[in-house]
């Protein structure tokens, strides 16, 4: 791999101003009084994520984990070209439903975020938002070499190369692209992990929240959302 090119220095000086709709402003109430609006404070919950303890009884937690493992609801969010590999999973040939895997249209009802390929910075922002809006416990699967080390986008100016820097990845499935069988194998692996109580990505994210945020903000320059998207 080529060494860092010393002759080119990226611009680290310029700051992106806050987007107009998020800038504090003053509006006039119907009765004439002036109201200060700070959109980020007023519109969004600012609470950081919590680390959720497990149940006091191990047997209860094991039962829960069994249920979680057998009821994986995927967020229907195709981030890259790998999304095309998920469609066959619904067909008679692969039929992922028999493993308790279903697709949900909203992050609130999903537990598993499949990052299906390369993530441009712009998509990363949406992926973070979607991930944070999912209720915990939640799991992330990285699909394909792009999420592992950048793959064929290793030298792209706007594609991240190492997903676990930004989101707590439970499982990678290698390949470019991995076939549906590989995905099924990955789901099986993930189920095992969850049943063993190792699917604690959400807690990991909450524990290392600052680190994740720093990484995210280092690539997403126009951070136009609260630190945690409830």
């Amino acid at each position, binding site marked *: *791999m*080529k060494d*860092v*090119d010393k*002759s*080119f*220095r*990226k*611009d680290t000086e*310029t*700051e*992106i101003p806050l987007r107009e709709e998020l800038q504090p402003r003053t509006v006039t109430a119907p009765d004439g009084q002036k109201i200060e609006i700070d959109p980020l404070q007023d519109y969004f919950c600012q609470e950081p994520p919590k680390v959720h303890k497990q149940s006091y009884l191990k047997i209860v937690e094991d039962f829960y984990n069994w249920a979680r493992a057998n009821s994986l609801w995927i967020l229907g969010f195709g981030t890259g070209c790998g999304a095309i590999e998920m469609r066959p999973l619904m067909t008679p040939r692969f039929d992922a439903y028999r493993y308790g895997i279903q697709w949900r249209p909203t992050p609130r009802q999903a537990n598993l975020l499949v990052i299906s390929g390369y993530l441009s*910075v*712009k998509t990363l*922002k949406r992926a973070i938002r979607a991930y944070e809006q999912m209720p915990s416990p939640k799991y992330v699967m990285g699909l394909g070499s792009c999420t*592992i*080390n*950048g793959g064929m986008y*290793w*030298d*792209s*100016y*706007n*594609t*991240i*190369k*190492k997903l676990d*820097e930004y989101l707590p990845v439970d499982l990678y499935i290698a390949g470019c692209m991995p076939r549906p069988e590989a995905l099924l194998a990955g789901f099986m692996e993930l189920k095992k992990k969850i049943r063993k109580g190792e699917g604690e990505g959400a807690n990991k994210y909450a524990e290392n929240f600052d680190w994740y945020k720093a*990484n995210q903000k*280092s*690539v*997403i*320059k*126009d951070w136009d959302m609260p630190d945690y998207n409830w």
Partner: protein
Amino acid sequence: MMRDLYDHMKTRYRLGDLTEQRANLAFVDVAQDELRALLVELRDVHGFTHLVLLTAVDWIEEGRFQLTYMVNNRTANLTLGLRVYLDRKSPVGNTIHDLWPTAATYQRELREMFGISFPGSPRVDEEFILEGWTDMPPYRRDFDTLAYSQQTYAERGGRETHDPRDHMQKKLYPEGRP
């Protein structure tokens, strides 16, 4: 046919030489100040009603950008590329969004990716694909995308690159080519 058109136009416009790629595809250099008049005439008189694309090439060595306006005559199946050169130091193009509304989108893209400005084009200064981009426009050739990537994105160690040809050769003939 294309030649006839060229000869006809040549009498009134300062055109460069005609580069004929195929019988129905040709390129010609155009002076920037005559571009608009030429496009209007091509569209309204000669039937080139469709703007196929508007794109740019960074001729860094020559210190200029080349804008290519590709227009198409559907009935005659002719495509003509008009090349306009802009100074690379202060690249300002003429907006043609009023001739073809789609041009506005092309111009927005060029503004973002090459830093070529098109005064008067709608929403041209708003971000197009990139969000919060502060660096040099990334399609310029002096923008080093690898260096930028290395300076910006975390990497995972242990990555190897193989030239497919060498790799397969090694794999198939470990002892060297028979």
